[in-house]
């Protein structure tokens, strides 16, 4: 599978990372190197093998469905690049 510049641009868009058009050919090249390496996996017979979901077999613990934490607005907002009136502030989302 070979990745061209337009695929690289699409992946960058999906990942929400701005990539300048002039950087796309090199990026596509790197993707192809890495994916070429990954292609080795096609040699493995995986018929009837379950994909791993948990490396250590365990039953996830349950707890009572009650509030155990909260009322920490100031601490939650303390690292925000832009926090106003108790909210995270972002550029306008809806016109």
């Amino acid at each position: 599978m070979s990745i061209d510049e337009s695929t690289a641009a699409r992946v960058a868009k999906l990942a929400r990372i701005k990539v300048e058009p002039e950087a796309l050919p090199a990026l596509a090249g790197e993707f192809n190197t890495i994916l070429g390496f990954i292609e080795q996996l096609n040699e493995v017979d995986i018929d009837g093998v379950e994909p791993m979901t948990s490396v250590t077999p365990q039953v996830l613990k349950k707890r009572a469905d009650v509030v155990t934490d909260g009322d920490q607005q100031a601490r939650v907002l303390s690292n925000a690049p832009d926090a106003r009136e108790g909210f995270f502030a972002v550029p306008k989302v809806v016109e």
Partner: protein
Amino acid sequence: MSKLNELGLAEARDALRAGDTTAKELTEACLIAIEAAGALNAFVHKTPELAMERAAAADARLAQGDAPAMCGLPVGIKDLFCTKGVPSQAGSRILQGFLPEYESTVSQNLADSGAVMLGKLNMDEFAMGSSNETSVYGNAVNPWRRGNDVTPLTPGGSSGGSAAAVAADLCLAATGTDTGGSIRQPAAFTGTVGIKPTYGRCSRWGIVAFASSLDQAGPMTKSVRDAAIMLEAMSGHDPKDSTSADLPVPDFEAALTGDIRGKTIGIPKEYRMDGMPAEIETLWSEGIAMMKDAGAEIVDISLPHTKYALPAYYVIAPAEASSNLARYDGVRYGHRAKLDQGDGITEMYEKTRAEGFGHEVQRRVMIGTYVLSAGFYDAYYNRARKVRTLIKRDFETVFAQGIDAILTPATPSAAFGLGEMTDADPVAMYLNDVFTVTVNLAGLPGVAVPAGLDTKGLPLGLQLIGRPWQEADLLNAAYTLERAAGFVAKPAKWW
């Protein structure tokens, strides 16, 4: 007694309890060593006031005879651990200025155990790298050199600052994390000991996530005994991490008997790689002979899917990273790009992430995005997860056949020069983890033990891999290997 900062955890603990020194003196000795070691670029955020406060508290507890296991012992913390009120950037620009409002469970466990935090340690950005060259802080430098050659060498990665700091005696021990070899490879490159415990032994809560199904914290220390002491202090069940195991934590230090008679050590043939340097071969053979002399039975084994571990890892780890790193959006914490007139929220995300993430992180996030995207999920991600099942099954099969531990080289080479891999393709760098990454995929404990020097005078390590949850037995095997190898070399001080 050697200089206080040169002590290991066990020696310092015993000296503290005998009243031969104080936590304050130990901490001061480390702080002086750190100030003099700027050239290593290991400590990237120093916390001397906090350290002296904690040392005073430790001395008070020692005086009262109420000293927990790590009371008064100065350690460094990898920058990946969130530490309350202390910068925690994961080596990334995108977390510049981030001051956590909370403390990671592991660093809290260490604090509860009396340990004194000296500061935060350099690392590859988001733990993605094998040479500490992807860090926003610049390279950490290995205290070891090739004889009289002054070429700066990598301390390995991603826990490069931790390894350099421990090897250069800037602290008694340090925390590391290991997703594909990030504790064991730097330990091997610096002549130190590093153990990645069984997945679930240490809580991941408060540790900046890279690949959640692979990440584990562990200690990086000057001896196997120190690793046992510190791992015990770091471990334990944590309700805040749903993958944290609710199992009792054994007394790891008590397991160090040095007696491995009757144990069976497996030697996997697939780890004999083409083009492996003769020195690594020789070291491995010597290690096998040492274990045999100590009374272990040596058995040749096969782990047939070994060669597929790295390609499976380079699907699974980026996939998980692309999901975990989605949180860095310039909204809640860290860096936000300056926006142009008319930029909306999408431009904010895209510019923030382009400015905040370094090249390797961007590449892995995008690879992860690709392998998870519609149409490729089955071909890449699901296939890799099936191969992971097979890799784990390889280990289960040999353990069922009676193998207690597996002995392999830790790395395919000694430490290389900083910048030497710059022009290589990314896959060449990934090959550093060829012997360690299988262990993360199978969730097993693995430990790197320094076992010799190469002809240029650089340390080389061997790796022992244990059964799940059997860190005590694994550490005892490592202790036996450490005693037999008798590795005592230290880097000549140049910094």
